[in-house]
């Protein structure tokens, strides 16, 4: 299970990489592994406003469709259009090529509700017990 040090995490297995007032968001390695082969992703559109812990995308795997919740509130600046034809990038590279969107962070205080990598690792280990 890959859990990079420098990211922030949610209990629903989304991640955020912060850089200044922007954040790149996606789903974790744990999430992609649990979902299995990802076949389609409904991404938020640039300009859309997303809200922390609220729906922002849908991921479909062969078996099921699952909601993705925004780790932080903000405005979508960019969505990863490579995923339209290659959703399997999320299986292959959940934290890099498989990123979902870049958002302009509305409220940096919301970061306090996220887990760091050590906390997320403990959380994931607790789930598999």
């Amino acid at each position, binding site marked *: 299970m890959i859990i990079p040090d420098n990211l922030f995490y949610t209990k629903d297995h989304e991640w955020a990489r912060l850089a200044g007032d922007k954040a790149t968001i996606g789903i974790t390695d744990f999430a992609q592994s649990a979902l*299995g082969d990802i076949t*389609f992703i409904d991404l938020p559109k640039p300009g859309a406003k997303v809200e922390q812990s609220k729906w922002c995308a*849908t991921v*479909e795997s*062969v*078996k*099921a*469709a699952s909601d993705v919740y925004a780790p932080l509130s903000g405005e979508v600046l960019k969505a990863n259009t490579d995923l339209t034809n290659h959703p399997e990038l999320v299986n292959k590279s959940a934290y890099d090529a498989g990123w979902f969107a870049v958002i302009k962070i509305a409220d940096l205080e919301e970061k306090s509700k996220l887990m760091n990598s050590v906390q997320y690792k403990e959380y994931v280990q607790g789930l598999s017990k």
Partner: protein
Amino acid sequence: MNENLILAETPLVNKHKELGAKLAPFGGWLMPIQYSGIIEEHNWVRQNAGLFDICHMGEFMIQADLAKSNLGNLVTIDLDGMPFGACRYGFMLNEQAGIIDDLLVYRIAASEWMVVVNAATTDGDFAHLKKHLTGATTLKNVSQSLGKLDLQGPLSADVLEELAGPGIRQLRYYTFGYFKLLGEKIIISRTGYTGELGYELYMPNNKIPQLWDKLLSDKRARPIGLGARDTLRLEMGYSLYGQDIDKNITPLEAGLGHFIYLDKEFIGKASLLKQKQNGVSRRMIYFAADSRRSPRHNYRIVYKGREAGAVTSGSFSPSLGIGIGMGYVKDKIALGEQVTLSENSVSINAKVTEKPFYKNGSAKSGEIK
């Protein structure tokens, strides 16, 4: 259903764990859903040979003379017309013509039969047969001791030939024979649930792990989970009992009337004839989405702006790269018509199509047309 109820395990459960399979409950059994990944496994079966643990399914051995018993009344198949060594697909119906189960009948000899049924319905089917069978018959549920492996894919004959001998190539579609494998004389039929050339092997449970290992020692064969079994069968438009058909649905509604032999008496026939005369109030349709987005079980089927029915099975089709599905609608909807499959904010455009979705299956390869 409480998934923490004690699940039955096949003789291969430890093999699956060693192979790193994801296991999940299915029909009261702990079964492998996937090994390397559903899409990779699906494609492997379409191109090579895949091995499935199907030990959960039920098998009954029946001795019944058709003239002196009512076995023929309990299934929709023309048992009298079956040659020895033939397999036939059909149904066991209730009085209302609802499907108690879909099944395969094997005619071993004039009065000797094997019936293969779904896992979750095995006990109910057995009780139904026991209750209704009359005349000089013996009925044995051998599900606990007889295992089954399915080997499916265009290379399955090449793989199986190494173990069963060249005679395996003589088997025609929907026939079976006895073959000597691992010191046992076992039934192998040329049947399956994938649309590919393939075989179902009935082996005593104690030799199942050995057979599994032997078949997988051939690198052309790989283990395949129930996840890919589901996408493979859906691409063929095959119904899954408990999901697409059940005791409240008739074969006519399911579009499976061609598996009914009407020139005999059987339980449910009167209701079926009545429905045939009056017409059905719902019918199964098949639809292909215009994108990778996939319909799911219970999504609404909307036709001309009105709700017409619900999806029973839906998935991404690995072979076609689009969403596909099937479900019942109350309207008559012609091939080529547009429907929308929706739930909450999801709305998928799809076209009504014929089955199978996947048309290049090797199941009947080598058959004289």
